[in-house]
């Protein structure tokens, strides 16, 4: 009798747990906030791209998920949970952005630190599946995909279920985890033939019930928040060049094993 009421009490306490979303802790976060990221961001640039923008995203996420089934979930779980729900897209936006922005900042380091790391042999073996024999030609293709994108978005290097790699563009708040929300195409203005072929290919994949287990290894933000403060409205190309020099490859190498 006593036991039962105790367990009920415990359950009640558990089910009334509350959670608010906070700006996650970065490995060198304190140092970045004071000195910026050497070779990429000034302290102000870091503040806009990470501290302020992440606070904007997580605060909005808290306000929107408060008292709902998503309250106790991480941004990653929320984005998966809401991606397919047409009436939850306002929540999805903040969850997906919060996750992507964290994913992006998590892999950055000071230039001097980053230059001491390099991609693992496993990474190079995988690069071969993209027809790149060396890192430089892959770099050029990856950064070009980011630079030539109109509007806001993300570019990811993802691993597919067959363990091959692919460069994936996500417009706006697109996510690499679910291809219904990859948002790889921009059909707002002119439609080019590549987009049309891409649409056809998606239809084929759906018809053949293709499995979608895509996981990102490397990502770069093409949102204005990530560069206009330091590089100006026309500084995207410079920003991308600097970004490449500040990748902490040890993080990327670890992600391959997590996959």
């Amino acid at each position, binding site marked *: 009798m006593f036991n039962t009421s105790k367990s009920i009490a415990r359950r009640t306490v558990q089910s009334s747990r509350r959670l608010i979303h906070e700006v996650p802790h970065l490995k060198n976060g304190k140092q970045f906030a004071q000195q910026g990221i050497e070779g990429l961001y000034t302290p102000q640039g870091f503040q*806009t791209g990470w501290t*302020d*923008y992440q*606070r*904007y995203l997580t*605060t*909005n996420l808290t*306000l929107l998920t408060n008292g709902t089934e998503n309250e106790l979930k991480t941004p990653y779980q929320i984005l998966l949970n809401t991606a397919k729900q047409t009436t939850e897209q306002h929540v999805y*936006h903040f969850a997906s952005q919060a996750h992507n922005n964290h994913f992006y900042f998590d892999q950055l380091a000071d230039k001097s630190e980053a230059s001491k790391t390099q991609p693992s042999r496993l990474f190079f073996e995988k690069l071969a599946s993209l027809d790149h024999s060396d890192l430089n030609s892959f770099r050029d293709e990856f950064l070009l995909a980011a630079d030539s994108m*109109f*509007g*806001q*978005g993300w570019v990811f290097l993802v691993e597919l279920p067959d363990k091959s790699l692919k460069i994936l563009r996500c*417009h*706006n*708040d697109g996510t690499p985890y679910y291809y219904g929300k990859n948002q790889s195409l*921009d059909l*707002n*203005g*002119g*439609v*080019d*033939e590549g987009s*049309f072929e891409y*649409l*056809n290919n998606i*239809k*084929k994949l*759906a*018809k053949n019930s293709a499995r979608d287990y895509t996981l990102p290894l490397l990502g770069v933000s093409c*949102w*204005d*928040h990530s560069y*206009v*403060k330091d590089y*100006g*409205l*026309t500084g995207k190309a410079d920003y991308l060049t600097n970004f490449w020099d500040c990748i902490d490859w040890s993080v990327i190498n670890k992600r391959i094993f997590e996959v």
Partner: protein
Amino acid sequence: MLKNGIRIKKSGLSLRQVRNFSFQLPSISTLDQVKAANSDYDGLFKNSTVKQIWYERGQHLLDGLNQTMEDHGLDKTGTDLQTIITGLISKPQLYGVYSYSASLYTLQFFLESLKPNNTSEISTPTADTLLKTPALNEYTNVPTNPVLVDWINQLFGSIDEFRTLLLNSARGIKGDGYVWLVAKLTVSGKTENTKYIYKELSVTNTYNAGVVDDGLRSGQVTKLKGQKQARLDNLRKRADELSQLEGSSTQNTELQAEIAQLEDDINLKELGTVEEAEDITVYANKKLVPLLAIDASPRNYLLDYGVFGKNKYLDNLWESIDWDVVAKRMPPRSKQFFSID
């Protein structure tokens, strides 16, 4: 379809001629004054931001446009942005040229809808503003043209409601995009007495390099499918000819494989197709005439208003709308008449 002679020229001679001419950054008087006086764009942008938004980014888009047009060997003489947009949106291979010209055109249209104002202030809100209760409608800038006011009141209820709709649409845009006030044109009647009727105003969004006129946009995917169908027909014809030539027993396997591939592509019917979706929303007898555009993209507020400043920016933007310009763009309104026989 192509007016004023945008043509793809292939000979080396015309290419060299093309290089001599390139588009210049259009002059916008309000911005030129700000630049000349080295002052702020009162109530909306700081001086440095004006430089970035128009003189740097505008130039960047223009360079992209000139470059891509040159790469494709397009003749620029005697054309303007509007003509390029209309002519090129349905040319898939010229996607880049279209995107640059559409971005530049909308940016110019937006900046020309504005004037500096003395009522609002540029400030950088902090994270706390996210938790504040939004203020009631507080604004001073309202249209004065009686026809425009009457039209807005009738279609949206009141200026208050119109402002709320316009700014909320802008808040809903998370990436790059514009909110437009448009007049809907309906064309009716046969060719000899065509009637152009503007009955309704409407608020609509475009994203990235989108253009406001849906009539231009629609039918692109259908057209691409048509091209594929034409290629399939050609291949079938060639296969027929070949088999007649070489006797019916031999078949070109490569050709057959390609035909099978194309048939497969075209006959995917399990899901509704994008072509069908396009047909449903086709805009054949309608046209949207833009009166006002406001830019909700982050680049416009990040520099002066910061990450938390979108609402403040939009409030200031409303104060800076030049209603005289909007009234000038307004087409003659056709009121609805009911006749009783």
